[in-house]
């Protein structure tokens, strides 16, 4: 019999058992739809993540020391700790060898670690300012008086704040709390301020040591940074752009905050919350009345109104007070109450009050705890736990276009590699030579713990007291130091000759990544470079594994639904075979071969699979194309990273359609086998017996 006839009979069977066909078809449609849409979505996210990661930090491939203690994960471990990857000797040597590979476009040296800045609290800030003014021989007395009034006002505010709350500070014992009260009382007397100018240094130190610690102080800023060649970084990461300030000039030491970090961590708390609320209202269409999350932020601003009033001086307080009463149409005399009333915003007045904040309040407060142009003493712990600090100028902030709001892409601030080396505690030749001198002065040999008891050999008579020398006087050290001016520039040679922790490699064609990784590892072995190469996914650590996990979960879902469909097809075919025993027996009796029966069943299944699978594929493809046009909005900052932008636009991969259709055929083949085998075993005799 011809295939056409078999097809006709199969189609007849499909329509004859409509209910069964519809149930099986629905499952197949769903499976195919999920496969197309899900894979397109995961591919979209995967591509977005790849873009976010490779275009912000990793490049296509990362290299690091082959002797590294940990596996490289540029985003750190799950607990936030940086991975210990050691370092590689000379960047120049490695770069020269690697650039011989025609597939490699460039190598960007890097080192990622974390550091901290401690700008001090508001009183620290004003005390340092007045201290500086007093040190200036040409200081302006009027300015000093104004600063004194400012500090006195602030101290009064602190006193008011702490009234009856000393115990709540937590860190003060009863005695310390009593002393703090006495100190605050002392400062509220005119006598303290009357002779301030004659004894300024002592009075300022008194306040710095006794009063400033009374302010709740969480001003320490911790951040991750990548040390690199800033010019090369900018060139190789094309989405890099300066937002505030300027780019670090070539050959100059400098620091750039990531703008996301600067806006979310360095900015004044109240201001940053207002910005966040505005963004949520605009982008996510949230309302204050309808969102608990936004209400909590409003509440936090009201509770932390001290962050604003402690920063305003007496004149500013008066000025803002008048404006606030005008805005609120009130006549509130207590500025604290007035400010709280103002910060307690609602949907209908938010925008007006937001604008007011930036126009009338922000100019009088410290809007950013670190200003662009500041020279920071930036401290960090070296690999061995040693604390080091470098002084580094903040030139500005940067971001990566299209995922500027991504906290993960915004994870790293940026500094030059030479400063990173210093912060990381690498030894310079000069330091090495000085080490030798100090060691000679010490005159002590290294002794391992195993032989440490030799140091206690002591006198031969064990009962004798150890010989005790009289300590030498400590007066021989010259204590006049020349201020070490931190080098503000470096040569390209200096940058390239030194060590690096890891490096980003950019390829001509990313699809050659695997082959190039092998080639780099081979080159390293041959030339003893001491490096190993990993893909960007591996270098991104747990973040790089997320797409793999998402794909695995999606495929499990698709697999389950298709397996279910396959089983149902098999079951229904089996039932059909049993119900159609006579028909099949008769066919066999009139000469139909077993292969005809097999084809009959196979075509029936193929028909269902292709028809409904096809519907699923078409439906899925339409949805993908629709999303490809309108995009899925990134509902949060994390989603921005995964989507590599504010919206995710899906793309239809023709290969995916082809694969889904092949899978449908495979399901048809698999599901046919057992029922067809059973049907083929039906003999004409069985059909006739049944009839009798």
């Amino acid at each position, binding site marked *: 019999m011809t295939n056409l006839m078999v097809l006709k009979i199969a189609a007849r069977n499909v329509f004859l058992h409509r209910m069964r066909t519809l149930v099986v078809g629905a499952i197949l449609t769903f499976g195919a739809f999920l496969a197309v849409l899900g894979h397109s979505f995961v591919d979209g996210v995967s591509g977005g993540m790849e873009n976010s990661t490779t275009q912000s930090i990793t490049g296509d491939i990362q290299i690091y020391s082959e002797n590294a203690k940990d596996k490289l994960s540029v985003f*750190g471990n799950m607990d*936030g*700790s940086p991975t*210990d990857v050691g370092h590689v000797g000379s960047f120049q040597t490695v770069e020269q060898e690697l650039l011989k590979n025609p597939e490699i476009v460039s190598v960007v040296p890097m080192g990622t670690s*974390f550091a901290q800045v*401690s700008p001090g609290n508001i009183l620290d800030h004003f005390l*340092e300012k007045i201290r500086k003014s007093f040190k200036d021989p040409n200081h302006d007395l009027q300015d000093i008086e104004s600063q004194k009034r400012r500090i006195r006002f602030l101290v009064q505010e602190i006193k008011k704040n702490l009234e009856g709350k000393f115990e709540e500070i937590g860190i003060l014992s009863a005695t310390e709390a009593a002393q703090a009260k006495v100190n605050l009382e002392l400062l509220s007397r005119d006598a303290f301020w009357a002779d301030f100018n004659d004894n300024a*240094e*002592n009075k300022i130190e008194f306040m*710095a*040591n006794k009063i*400033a*610690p009374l302010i709740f102080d969480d001003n*320490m800023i911790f951040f991750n940074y990548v040390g690199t060649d800033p010019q090369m970084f900018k060139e190789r990461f094309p989405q890099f752009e300066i937002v505030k300030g300027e780019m670090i000039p070539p050959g100059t030491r400098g620091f750039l905050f990531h703008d996301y970090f600067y806006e979310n961590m360095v900015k004044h708390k109240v201001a940053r919350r207002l910005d966040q609320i505005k963004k949520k209202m605009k982008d996510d269409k949230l309302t204050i009345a309808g969102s608990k999350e936004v209400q909590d932020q409003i509440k936090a601003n009201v509770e932390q109104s001290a962050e604003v009033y402690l920063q305003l001086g007496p004149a500013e307080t008066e000025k803002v007070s008048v404006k606030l009463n005008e805005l609120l149409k009130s006549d509130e005399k207590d500025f604290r109450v007035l400010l709280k009333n103002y910060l307690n915003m609602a949907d209908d007045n938010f925008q007006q009050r937001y604008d007011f904040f930036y126009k009338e309040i922000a100019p009088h407060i410290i809007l950013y705890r670190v200003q662009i142009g500041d*020279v920071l*003493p930036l*401290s960090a*712990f070296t*690999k*061995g*736990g*040693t*604390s080091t*600090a470098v*002084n580094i100028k903040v030139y500005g902030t940067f971001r990566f276009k299209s995922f500027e709001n991504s906290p993960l892409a915004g994870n790293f601030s940026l500094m030059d590699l030479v400063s990173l080396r210093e912060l990381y505690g690498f*030894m310079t030749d000069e*330091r*090495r030579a*000085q*080490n030798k001198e*100090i*060691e000679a*002065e*010490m005159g*002590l040999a*290294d002794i391992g713990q195993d032989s*440490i008891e*030799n*140091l*206690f050999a*002591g*006198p*031969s008579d064990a009962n*004798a*007291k*150890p010989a*005790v*020398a009289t*300590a*030498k*006087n*400590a*007066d*021989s*050290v*010259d*204590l006049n*130091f020349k*201020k*070490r001016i931190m080098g503000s520039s470096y040569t390209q040679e200096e940058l390239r000759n030194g060590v690096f922790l890891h490096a980003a490699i950019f390829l001509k064609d990313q699809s050659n990544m695997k082959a190039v990784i092998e080639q780099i590892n081979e080159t390293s072995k041959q030339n003893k470079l001491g490096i190993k190469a990993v893909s960007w996914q591996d270098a991104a650590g747990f973040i790089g594994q997320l797409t793999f996990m998402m794909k695995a979960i999606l495929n499990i879902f698709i697999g389950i639904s298709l397996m279910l469909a396959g089983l149902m097809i098999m079951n229904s075919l089996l039932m059909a075979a049993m119900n159609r025993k006579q028909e099949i027996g008769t066919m066999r009796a009139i000469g139909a071969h077993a292969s005809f029966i097999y084809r009959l069943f196979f075509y029936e299944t193929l028909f269902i699979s292709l028809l409904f699978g096809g519907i699923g594929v078409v439906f899925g493809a339409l949805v993908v194309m629709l999303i490809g046009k309108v995009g899925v909005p990134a509902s949060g900052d994390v989603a921005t990273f995964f989507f590599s932008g504010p919206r995710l636009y899906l793309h239809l991969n023709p290969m995916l359609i082809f694969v889904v259709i092949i899978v449908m055929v495979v399901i048809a083949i698999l599901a046919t086998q057992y029922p067809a085998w059973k049907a083929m075993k039906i003999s004409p005799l069985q059909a006739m017996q049944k009839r009798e």
Partner: protein
Amino acid sequence: MKKVVSKSLFYVALISILMSVTAYAEDKTDAKKDAKTEIKPELTQAQADEIVKLVDDRQRNSGDYKSLVFVKETEKTKEPRLFQAMVYRRDGDDKFMILFTKPKEEAGKAYLKIDKNLWNFDPGTGKWERRTEREKLAGTNSRRSDFDESRLTEEYTTKYEGADKLGAYKVYKFKLSVKEGIDVAYPVLNLWVDQADKNILKREEYALSGKLMRSSFYPKWNKKFSESKKADVWIPEEIRIFDQLEKGNSTIVLIKETDLGKLEENMFTKAWIESKSK
């Protein structure tokens, strides 16, 4: 982050070491009493408590103190780092200062502790950073006790573990366990105290889990008469610390020169430290 900060923080360790073990004042009357009632290797609980109290008492030094200190920090697989610093204390006012003198990059940098404030000065920027106790210790495994004078008797209960020998020296071995409700860096200590001089020769510090964190050895002691105390002060000349978590990491502290005379009145101030860097 945890991983890095949990390692021995050099400055924290240095301050801790220098604040807690620099001066052991031996009161002459105590010495005479000891000589008369020589303590035998078998100690009663009262005698054990008395010895540990003696160790504590000797560390309370009300006078001024100045010393020249060398530190060598050795890390496995890394080159050692060496520093020279002047250490100043005024225990009566709870003031403490480290002024780094060598190498050049560190010269002029200083730590100044007044009350609970630990000030950090960098002559490069001329800026001061005030770190409150809370901040300073945030994320590290250091505690307030690291920065205070020895309070072994107040914070720990002593258990005498018998006489022992450390090299040629006869020592008493004590196990100290933290008292309930007291927060200390290391809840269990083992001390080896020289039977003759009552100086600590070895100290082991254990974590709550019972893991040995740090072993310190005090092989050399110097003696200096203090006018303010009218007594001898014992100063460990050499301290060798072995990190037991990161095997191979060690620190040597050498207190080379000491002066117990009165220091300038205005020394523990920002102005004084700033004046040293021009």
